[in-house]
Each structure stands twice: as C-alpha cells, then as structure tokens.
C-alpha cells in the first residue's frame, strides 16, 4: 500500500493542535519554513559519535 509522506505543514500542525495552540497563519508559515533546518539539526544528535548507548544527563532522586 502506498502512502503519501506528510508535508512539513502537516507535521507542524499536529503538535500545535495536540497542545491546543492556535498561532496565526503567518506564525505557522514561519514555523513550517524553519522546520526542515530544525529537523536536520535534530538528526545530528542521533548520530554523534558515542551517543548510541549513552545515558541522558537527567537524574532522579527518590527522596523528596
């Protein structure tokens, strides 16, 4: 079954809708325009040397 890849606009719309945010069309257009660059930067975080099995820099202390 063939699927059509979602557009950047659809990808941006989804989390905004999910979180109940209602930017203007202009504001959404700017987010969509920046989205490919942003995703490319995110992708580099998954391919850094040594990151594959590293622990995240977050800690949890069960004592309150």
């Amino acid at each position: 079954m063939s699927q059509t890849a979602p557009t950047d606009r659809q990808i941006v719309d989804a989390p905004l809708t999910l979180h109940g945010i209602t930017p203007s069309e202009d504001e959404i257009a700017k987010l969509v325009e920046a989205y490919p660059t942003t995703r490319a930067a995110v992708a580099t975080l998954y391919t850094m040397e040594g990151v594959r099995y590293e622990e995240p820099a977050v800690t949890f202390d069960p004592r309150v």
Partner: protein
Amino acid sequence: MTATTTGPTMEGTAEAVGAARTIADSAAALRAGETTSVALVREALAVADKYDAPVGVFIDRYRDSALAAAEMADAALASGAPVGPLHGIPLGIKDIISTTEGPTTCQSLVHDPAASVGDAVVVQRLRAAGGIVMGKLSTCEFAIGAPDASKPFPVPKTPWSLDHWAGGSSSGSGSSVALGAVQGALGTDTGGSIRMPAAYCGITGLMPTFGRVPKSGCAPLGYSLDHIGPMARTARDCAVMFDVLAGPDASDPTTLDVPVPVYTDALTGDLAGVRIGVDSLARIGGDLQDPALLPAFEAAVEALAERGAQVVEVELPFYEELSFADWLIMLSEAAAYHLPDLQTKWELYGAPTRATLANGLLYSAADYVQAQRARRVGQKAIAKVYEQVDLIATPTCATGAPSFAHLDEFGVAADFFRTIYTGYWDTTGNPVLSLPMGFTGNGLPLSLQLAGRPFEEALLLRAGDAYQQLTDWHLRVPRPALEASA
C-alpha cells in the same frame, strides 16, 4: 605585549578611564569614610534619571527604599558595627528574579503569579551582605523573547550605541552596570543571557557552574540549564558578589553541596603554570565575524600569556551539536512551563516570544532525551580537553552588538545564533567568564570568554582579574549622545 588604553571608541560617547566606579573601590571608600552609601545611591540614581528611558534599563526603580537602605547602611558604618562585603553598594536585579519591593513582571503582559515570591534566595544573600536593591532591570520577555516595541516595556539598547541591542536576556543588567546606574547586577544564563549582554555592553559577567547558585525565586526558562550569576564592571567585582552568591540551598534541588572557597582570595594576578586552550571559533563565525574580532582576541590571549599562562590551540568538540542541544532543551523545557498560558493567553505574549515557545512544541519527547544524551557525550568530551588545559578561551560573540535593523532582518534566523558562542557551555554546565577585550571599528565592545572546569570559578576569576590588571577595556564608561539619538 601590554594591552593599551587606546582603541577605537565611538567619538564623544566614552568617558575617560577613571570615571568608572567599581564595587571594590566603593567598598574601600565607604570603609575609609571617603564616601557614603547615600552618595553612591544618589549618584547611581542620577545616572538612571538621565539614561534609563533612552537606553531602556529598568522595569521599575526603587528610589525611596534604596535611599532609606543607604541611610541605614551609613548609620551602621558610623556605629562601627561589622558590615558585609556589599555593604552600601547599589545593585540591580534582572526582572525575572523576585524581590520584596515590587512585582516581577518577566517583561511580560502574561501575569505569572509564581514569579513574585518575595526575595529570591540570591537577593536574600545580596541583602545579607549589605547590598542595596536599586530596581528591577529590563530583559527579554521571560528571558527568551526578542526586543519588542509593540509591548509596553523598554527596548533595551547598548549604551555604546542606541541603534544597537543590549543583548539578552539580561539586557538591563548589562546596560545598567556599563552606565553606572548600579555597580553590580544579577543576570541569568540559559543560552548566553549573562555573557551576551555583558559582551555587547562592555562589562564582565560570570555564568557559574550549573548547580553552584540557587535559582529559587527566579522564573524558570530551562530547568536543567538555568544559571544565576553576577554581572559587574570587573572580574574582581564579580568575585565579591560571587563570594556571597555561591553555595547550595535546600529550596533548589539542583544546587550541589560542593565546598565554596573565598573567591576574592584567589585573585593573585598570577597565571604561572595555568594552561589555556585557545579556540577562536572562526570556523563557526566565518564571514560573519567582525574584522576587529580576531586581532582583539589574539591580543587578549597575549595578555594572558604575559601574566604567565601557557597557551595551546584546542578545538571545542561537538560544537555544533552541543550548541543546538542547548536550544532544543531550552525550548522544550520552556514550552512545558508556558503551555497553560500559551493555550489561554497567546495574544498577551510578544510575537517573538510565542513563536520561539511554539517551536519548542515541535520536538518529540525522544528528541529531548536524545539531546540530554548528547549533553552527556559532550560533558565527557570536554572533560578530556580539560585533561590537557585548565581554561579554554574563545570570543564571547563574533560581532559587536547587532543593530535593531539587523535583528529585524535576522528574526530568529540561524545566522544570528552563529555569532553567539555561548550556548555550548550551558549544555556542558561549565563555568564561564566574559570580559571586555576591545572594540569594533565603530566603537562597539568585543568580549573574551574564559571557561573552566566545573566548580573552578576561582581560577576563572583569577585569570579574569589578572587580564584586567593589564587592560582597561572594562573601565570605559559609555555616555550615549542622547540628543543625537533622539
């Protein structure tokens, strides 16, 4: 090489060296009976009366309470009672940090009741040391927005040129110290918000190690990245303030119980045996770098060597990835904090602020965790570099303060962030000191950035003080030509 007192400055806008007041000098003069706290406060008020409105320095000024506190400070001195290191000194507080005198606006129409909780722990510490709170200083909205003339708040300018931004987000903290409207200020830093305005305004700013200074009573931006630190004219003044700011507090679970030295005791002026790694970051700034930057940076490094430091070339590992991780983590954490207000008060936020916060909703939970994993990789990589060197020197920014016209062109475009060399260190959590190191051809300050190992602020401040014993860039006092700007 000895750095000189000459250099390009904006004609008619800088007072001669010697006009600058430092905390250390004022404290000594107070104790010697050569001045009074009331006189220092009145002098600071006079500067603020003249420059606050055109430069966009304060959100609120506490004239009456400051003068009353100064009178009490003078009475205490006259009585011979023991006094603290900041006794009678006029200080300013970035308006995302709470004080008892008035509300904390976070420079926003979005009223956040959690931002006004009486004195934050850091303000309590400054007061306990005798500091006098002069007012709340301008910022970017919630420490993340951009200059926004559409909102009823100051548009912060660098006092070196009123056509240029003060930097953010500790904007008023930078401009107030540069002008002399306060002698020291508190700033906060999540991606460079102490160091960028320190650089653009020509003052000194310290971002401490993450966890060194309690953040309770400060509106959060990025929970795992936020720092509060001192901004002042000199590294010595930052050390005086840091002596009372550093140390854990139970109210902030991210603070760490690591022994706190007396930072002012570390200021020996000597850098013999200190190894400094140098990275100009020219590969990042590229053609965006100001032509005066590299010569100024090289002269600054020479001055450090003249004080005894050994200088070697290094390259910051994972620069691009860790700088971006700072951005991703900051926006994700900020979006979580602001989401309820974004849903119900969207129009009350400034357009630049809400656009940036909305960007934070576009990252997935996996992306956030991955950024925190990248952060750990980065910590280990930079720790390896610190096996070879004790400090790392880079420029703070690639340029002087950007013009407002330039900012409008940039918007939140990536090019602007290529000129800011600060976010990397928020990701790793290391302490960093920014220091004036010269001027651009059109008279805007340039800045040196020194980064140390975690909790080694004493060495950072020692190096900064040693550098400033050879230079006087930090003593230049801008005096904007108000008529021309108007």
